């Protein structure tokens, strides 16, 4: 199979050699370089155990770390606070913020070439964690190590929201933890209460039930709503579309978009593997079975009555469509609430938007005998440490990792730029509880009830598929379902095509 256990150290080294040779060659050619080696240096000596707390924090004073992060709120907010970290530890941290695809590229190159330019990395669960899990340091020996400072809350599964540590930290085996939950994007439903109310009468006359959105609303309801608005549009009325999909250029969110519907109906999964840990050898895919083809049909039916720009709108663009008032509902990541509630950029602000869990499965659509659930998925960004770095640097990086994911910091980020906490204790703070009701000083908190109290709980939450080739997997799903939506393939053909491509992928 494609995965070779790490016995192949020999060839690994030869590659590193090979890369280094380039460096030596360059030096010989005299293009002006000074040194070949790590660009981060450790100046200090290691503290032997239980001296004072202050000494534990300060033991790596003088070292320098680079943190490669996605450009999401926590990193912006934490960048503002780096001075405090420096005062506390004497460690200098530089935070680079990039678009996720760019983070992916840079992280991949860094890890693959055996280097540690970026000692700390933002490891978004499937796009980065799944392919590179083996390149990140195992944090378990450091968690609770008495010679290092530690978070008073600890790092057990119970201090984070359900499944978060699994999502970004554990890949393929349960023993290693490669990342701590740093920020989170959980899908939930955003809908325009005002528009629903205005149309409820007409809708009820036609469909026999009220137009409203609750945790029991199903994908069938979404289809009905979308059909209703589409008909009005076709009749020439002004107003929004009922629904829109995330089928734009970014493959990962495109895959998540269809995964929600698949999982909601019978908890269907792409592979028969452990959803939390994933697998290096996922085997044959379930795409193409009766259940998946039926959902593809429904997905296409929904697309046909949705906003016409589905294939151009990624998550971001879709949110803009919602902000501009052109759709009455979207399934969106809860971290977007802050931008939706911003009066300066959004027509959906000011109490017009309601938040609910993701739509539920429809019993009639289930062929595999499974349960109908509110299929909810996520992107959990973890903070991970590059294994290529020296042990000292890894330990210095660990200090930053626990500091940046501490409850205090998460609370500050939520209050400031609108982040999304990953530690449960943040939600118990009085002003966070208060912010879950309007008027809210932290708009993201408006989503906390449907998300943290419902969406991420079992049986609704789906994490996978965690497979090493996750990115190509996403790309194949995205382009093939797009072909279906564009009318090139029927749902049955799409299922078959997915099966053949994915099975070839996992064999190669």
């Amino acid at each position, binding site marked *: 199979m494609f995965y*070779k256990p790490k016995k192949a150290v020999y060839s690994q080294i030869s590659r590193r050699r090979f890369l280094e040779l380039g460096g030596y060659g360059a030096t010989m050619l005299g293009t002006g370089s000074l040194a070949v080696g790590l660009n981060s240096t450790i100046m200090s000596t290691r503290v032997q155990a239980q001296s004072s707390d202050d000494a534990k924090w300060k033991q790596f004073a003088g070292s320098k770390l680079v943190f490669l992060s996605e450009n999401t709120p926590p990193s912006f907010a934490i960048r503002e606070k780096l001075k405090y970290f420096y005062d506390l530890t004497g460690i200098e941290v530089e935070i680079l913020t990039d678009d996720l695809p760019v983070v992916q590229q840079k992280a991949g190159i860094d890890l693959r070439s055996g280097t540690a330019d970026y000692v700390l990395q933002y490891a978004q669960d499937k796009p980065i964690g799944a392919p590179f899990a083996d390149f990140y340091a195992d944090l378990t020996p450091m968690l609770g190590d008495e010679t290092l400072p530690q978070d008073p809350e600890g790092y057990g599964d119970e201090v984070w929201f359900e499944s978060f540590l699994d999502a970004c930290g554990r890949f393929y085996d349960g023993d290693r933890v490669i990342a701590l939950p740093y920020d989170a994007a959980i899908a939930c439903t955003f809908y325009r209460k005002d528009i629903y109310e205005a149309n409820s009468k007409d809708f009820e006359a036609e469909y026999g039930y009220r137009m409203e959105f609750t945790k029991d609303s199903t994908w069938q309801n979404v289809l009905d709503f979308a059909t209703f608005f589409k008909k009005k549009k076709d009749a020439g009325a002004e107003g929004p579309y009922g629904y829109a999909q995330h089928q734009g250029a970014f493959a990962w969110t495109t895959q998540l978009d269809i995964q929600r519907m698949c999982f909601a109906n019978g908890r269907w999964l792409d592979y028969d593997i452990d959803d939390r840990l994933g697998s290096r050898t996922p085997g044959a895919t379930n795409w193409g079975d009766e259940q998946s083809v039926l959902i593809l049909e429904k997905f296409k039916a929904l697309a046909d009555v949705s906003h016409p720009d589905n294939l151009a709108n990624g998550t971001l663009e879709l949110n803009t469509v919602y902000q501009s008032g052109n759709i009455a509902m979207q399934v969106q990541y809860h971290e977007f609430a802050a931008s939706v509630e911003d009066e300066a950029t959004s027509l959906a602000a000011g109490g017009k938007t309601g938040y609910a869990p993701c739509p539920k499965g429809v019993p009639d659509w289930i062929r595999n005998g499974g349960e109908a659930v509110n299929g909810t998925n996520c992107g959990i960004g973890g903070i991970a440490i590059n294994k290529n770095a020296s042990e000292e640097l890894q330990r210095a990086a660990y200090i930053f990792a626990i500091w940046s994911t501490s409850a205090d910091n998460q609370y500050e980020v939520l209050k400031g730029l609108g982040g999304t906490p990953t530690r449960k204790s943040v939600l118990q703070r009085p002003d966070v509880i208060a912010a879950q009701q309007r008027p809210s000083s932290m708009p993201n908190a408006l989503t906390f009830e449907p998300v943290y109290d419902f969406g991420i709980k079992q049986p609704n939450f789906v994490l996978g598929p965690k497979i090493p080739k996750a990115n190509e997997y996403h790309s194949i799903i*995205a382009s093939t379902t797009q072909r279906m939506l564009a009318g090139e393939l029927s749902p049955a053909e799409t299922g078959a095509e997915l099966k053949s491509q994915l099975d070839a992928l996992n064999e190669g």
Partner: protein
Amino acid sequence: MTETLTGIDMSVRAPEDRFRARKVSTEVEARPLSAALPPPGRLNPAARKAYYFYLMAPAIALLAFISLYPFFWLIVMAFQKGDMGAVEWVGFKNFIDLASDDRFLSGWVLLFRYSAMCLFLQVSIGVLLAVVVNGSRYERFLVTALLMPMMMAPAVAGLLWLFLYNGTFGWYHWIFHSLGLLGSGSILSSAKTAMYAIVLVDVWQWTPLITLIALAGLKRVPRDQIEANMVDGASPFRNFFAIVLPNLYPVLLIAVLLRFMDNFRFIDHILVLTGGGPANATKILPVYLFEVAFKFFDLGRGAAIALVLLVVTIILGKILVGVFDRPTAGGR
């Protein structure tokens, strides 16, 4: 000098006869680059050479370093398979796999289709524009206005057009929709139209280059010939096809080759606008390579694709250089 030059020319000399008839004009427009005017060095040739080699050494060394090492790296990687830190030699497997990789094959088809559309539009509009603008009272102003798009970074141009094409608030979308060219879905939202979207951006940016090149060519079209023809009662159309166009061929050929090669090099605007989608409709080969190398991190497959792409580029480059040198070969 001449020996080595003909060495290159041999390979591309075949269609040369087509050009011989127009030698007069090509000689002026396509400047001989690899032919020195005076035959240098009747003075102490041996001692001189060393001196010149010292002068060129730094540049050559720098180039060698930044081009040869990556090249050998690609060759080595192309015969390896690397996953999750382990590497093994796989012989030609990466290349063999490409032969059955639909995305690779359709990448070529799309690259050629994209290039064909871009070049057809750029050349036809560009030449027409040059003919119309040439000699106009406002030529200077017009040319200045025209060349503006070329100055924009392709990535920024991609963002600008993403804004213009947006189905919710984009003005170009509104225009296309109002003209009935599009339905309510934006141009990027359909696999059928997305290719046109990226072609339009390329045409917007680079048609002016063709116009400028054609203008340079037009200045050399022998006026007396046209006038004589006109006196004979030839229509403007006949003039264009009989006299003007043949004179433009050599420069246009160069322009076309250059633009074609740039399509291999510059994918910034495609990455910004569509990322290759929807439904792979705009995943031209370099975009697929980008995906394999930087998203899937399948370095073996990426290196194999890159090598194939490099070989094709080198062949195109040979042809291009052959065209550059052609007037010289014709005999001066």
